[in-house]
C-alpha cells in the first residue's frame, strides 16, 4: 500500500512537473499578427508628381488696334499660317478718308508755303529799292539839293521794308512747320489705315478664332480677353505648366527629366525636362484661397513633337528629382515614428527588464527619465528579432514611389514589419509579434 502510494505520488509529481515545464518553456506565441518583408537593394527614383495644362511654348493673341467692321476673314481655327500671312480685314473706308483728308491738307500747306516764299522775294525787292532811294537822298543832301525831311522819310522806308521782309521770312518758317505737321498727320492716318489689315506675327496654327466676318471689333486691351480676335500658336515646341506643392519645390531643379501623361492620350507618355521653376507662389484667388495649398509654377518642356495636341489639355508631369542605384530600401508603410527615450549622446534607451522578468510593453516611454535622458520622436521601423518587434531608428534618404532609401539603421536582409497598418501604428518596442505572412519582396521603385 505504501509502495503504491509512493508510485502514485511520484507519477503525480512527474506529470505535474512535466506539464509545468511545458507551460513555462513552450510558450505559445501570443504576439500581434504582422506581415514581414525583408530589406532589399533596389533602384530608386524620387519623383514629384503634379498636374497642369498643356500649352505651346510660343503663342500670340491677335487683337485689333482700331475699331471697325470685319469685311474680310481669311482663316479658320486649325489653319496653318505663315508669318506675315493675311488674317482679316477691317473696313478701311473711314481711315482711308482720314488719309485723303490729311493728304489734301498737306498739299494746301505746301501751296501756301510756295506763296509765302514768293512774297519774301517781293519784300526783298522792295527793301532793295528803299535802300537805293536812301543812298540817293543822302548824296543829294550832301549837295544840299534836297531837304532833311526827304532823307528821314527814305530811312523810315528802309526800316519798314526790313520789317516786312523779316515777317515774310518768319511766315515761311511757320509754314514749313505746318507742313511737317501735316506730313505727320498723313503718316499717322496711313499707319492707322494699315491697322485694318491684320497679318500673322508668327508661323503656327490658329488655335482660337473669336470673330466672324461682319462683326465689329473693338480695340484690344491687355486685360480684356474678350478683345482677342485670333490666337496663333507655334505647336512645334510644347510645354506644360504644372503646380508643384511647396514641400516638393526645393527638390525641383532646371534640367531634371520628367515624363508627362496627357489625359487625352492615357496610353502615351512624353519625355520632357524642367525648363522653368517659379520663385513666387501662385496667387490663389476666390473663395477658400486662404486655406488652399501653396503651390509654385513649374514648366516642363516636352521633347519632340506631340501629334494631335491641343493647348489646354490637362496632363500630369512626373518629375524625377533624384535616383539611386541598388540602394537599401524599405517599404514606405514600414516606416513609423515613435516617442523614445534617448541618452545625451543620442543613443536609444532600451527597457532592459530585471533578471528573469518579462519586458514591459511601454517601459521605454513611461519610465522616469534619468539625468541626461530626453524623450524624442524618432523615425524608424520595427525589425522582427526573436519573435519581438524591435524599434530600430533609421535615417531615410530619397523617397521613391513605394520605398524609402535607408541611409543608416537597417541592412539588407533585415525583416521589417510592413503591416497590417493598425499593427504598425500600435506596436511598441519589444512587443511580441507573430508573423502571419511569408517573407515577401515587393517590387517597384
Amino acid at each position, binding site marked *: 500500500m505504501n509502495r503504491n*502510494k509512493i508510485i502514485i*505520488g511520484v507519477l*503525480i509529481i512527474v*506529470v*505535474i512537473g512535466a*506539464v*509545468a515545464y*511545458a*507551460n*513555462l518553456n*513552450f*510558450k*505559445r*506565441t*501570443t504576439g500581434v499578427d504582422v506581415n514581414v518583408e525583408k530589406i532589399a537593394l533596389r533602384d530608386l527614383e524620387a519623383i514629384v508628381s503634379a498636374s497642369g495644362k498643356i500649352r505651346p511654348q510660343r503663342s500670340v493673341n491677335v487683337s485689333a488696334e482700331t475699331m471697325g467692321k470685319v469685311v474680310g476673314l481669311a482663316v479658320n481655327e486649325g489653319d496653318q499660317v505663315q508669318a506675315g500671312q493675311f488674317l482679316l480685314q477691317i473696313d478701311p473706308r473711314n481711315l482711308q478718308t482720314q488719309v485723303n483728308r490729311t493728304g489734301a491738307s498737306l498739299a494746301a500747306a505746301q501751296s501756301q508755303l510756295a506763296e509765302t516764299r514768293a512774297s519774301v522775294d517781293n519784300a526783298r525787292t522792295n527793301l532793295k529799292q528803299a535802300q537805293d532811294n536812301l543812298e540817293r537822298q543822302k548824296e543829294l543832301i550832301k549837295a544840299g539839293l534836297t531837304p532833311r525831311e526827304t532823307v528821314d522819310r527814305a530811312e523810315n522806308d528802309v526800316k519798314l521794308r526790313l520789317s516786312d521782309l523779316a515777317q515774310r521770312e518768319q511766315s515761311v518758317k511757320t509754314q514749313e512747320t505746318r507742313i511737317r505737321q501735316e506730313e505727320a498727320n498723313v503718316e499717322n492716318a496711313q499707319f492707322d489705315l494699315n491697322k485694318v489689315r491684320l497679318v500673322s506675327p508668327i508661323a503656327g496654327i490658329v488655335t482660337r478664332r473669336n470673330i466672324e466676318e461682319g462683326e465689329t471689333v473693338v480695340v484690344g486691351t491687355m486685360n480684356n480677353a474678350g478683345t482677342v480676335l485670333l490666337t496663333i500658336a507655334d505647336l512645334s515646341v510644347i510645354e506644360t505648366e504644372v503646380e508643384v506643392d511647396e514641400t516638393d519645390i526645393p527638390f525641383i531643379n532646371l534640367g531634371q527629366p520628367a515624363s508627362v501623361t496627357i489625359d487625352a492620350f492615357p496610353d502615351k507618355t512624353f519625355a520632357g525636362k524642367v525648363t522653368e521653376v517659379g520663385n513666387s507662389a501662385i496667387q490663389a484667388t476666390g473663395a477658400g484661397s486662404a486655406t488652399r495649398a501653396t503651390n509654385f509654377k513649374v514648366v516642363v518642356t516636352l521633347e519632340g513633337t506631340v501629334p494631335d495636341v491641343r493647348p489646354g489639355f490637362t496632363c500630369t508631369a512626373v518629375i524625377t528629382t533624384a535616383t539611386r542605384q541598388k540602394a537599401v530600401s524599405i517599404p514606405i508603410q514600414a516606416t513609423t515614428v515613435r516617442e523614445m527615450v534617448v541618452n545625451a549622446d543620442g543613443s536609444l534607451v532600451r527597457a532592459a*527588464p*530585471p533578471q*528573469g*522578468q*518579462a519586458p*514591459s*510593453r*511601454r517601459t521605454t*516611454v*513611461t519610465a522616469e527619465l534619468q539625468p541626461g535622458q530626453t524623450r524624442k520622436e524618432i523615425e524608424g521601423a520595427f525589425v522582427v528579432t526573436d519573435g519581438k518587434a524591435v524599434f530600430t531608428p533609421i535615417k531615410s534618404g530619397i523617397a521613391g514611389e513605394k520605398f524609402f532609401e535607408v541611409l543608416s539603421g537597417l541592412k539588407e536582409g533585415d525583416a521589417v514589419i510592413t503591416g497590417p497598418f493598425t499593427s504598425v501604428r500600435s506596436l511598441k518596442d519589444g512587443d511580441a509579434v507573430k508573423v502571419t505572412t511569408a517573407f515577401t519582396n515587393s517590387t517597384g521603385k
Partner: protein
Amino acid sequence: MSDVTATASSLPPAEPIPNLLSRAIGVITSPGATFAHVARVPKVAGMLFLVSLVLGLAQGLPQLTERGRAAALEMQVQQMDRFGVTVTDEMYQQMEQRSHSNLGAYISIISMFVAIPFGAVIMTVLLWVAFNTIMRGTASFKHVMAVVAHSQSVTALGALIAAPIMYAQGVMRATNSITNLGALLPMLDETSFLAKLLGGIDLFVIWWVVVLAIGLTALYRKKTSSIATGLFIVYGLILIVVAYFTAG
C-alpha cells in the same frame, strides 16, 4: 444530520481528530482517511482561513517586490487588452504610479479572505442541492462545506508551487496556473477553441475534482468513480461552454 451523526458515531471512538495542518497535508497524501475524519467531525473555518492565507500570500507577497509589481502591472494591462480596453500611455503611467505602493499586495491578500469563503459557499450550495435533492443524500450543509474547504488544500498546494516559479519567471497570471494542458499543443492559435479548451484543463483542478469526489464519497457512501465521473462531466461542460464563448 441524524444519519451523519449515526455514521460518525459508528467510527472507532479512540481515533483522534488530526489538527488543521495534518488535515491539510492529509488531503494531499491520504485523502480517503482524512475525509473520513472530516465526515466525522466537520470543521470549516480553520481550513478556509488556511487556504485563504496560502492563496493570498501566494498572490500578494510577490507584489511587495518591484519585480512582482511589474508582473502584476503587465498582467493587468494584458487583461484590459483582452477585454478590449485600449491602454493609452497616460493610463499606463497612472497604473504604473499606483503600482509603486504596496496597496495592491494587501488588497490581493485580503481579497482572498473574501473570495475563497464566498466561492466555497457557492460550491457547497450547488453540491448540497445536487446530492441531497437528486441523489437523495442526507449530509448536512456543514459537512459538505467542510469537504469543499478541505479539498481546497489541493488548490493551495498548486498556488504554493506556482507562485515562486512564476515570480522567478517575472510573470503573473490571474489563475496562478502553470499546469494547464494548453502548452501541450503550442502550435495552436491561442484564440482557437481547442487551445482555449486545453488551457482550461489544469492538473491541479483535476486533482481537486478527484479529491472532492473522495470527500463526497465519505459523506454520501457512493462510489468515488461515479461521483468523480459526474463532477468531471460538469467540469468538462463548463470548459466547453467557456472555450466556445471565449474562442476568437
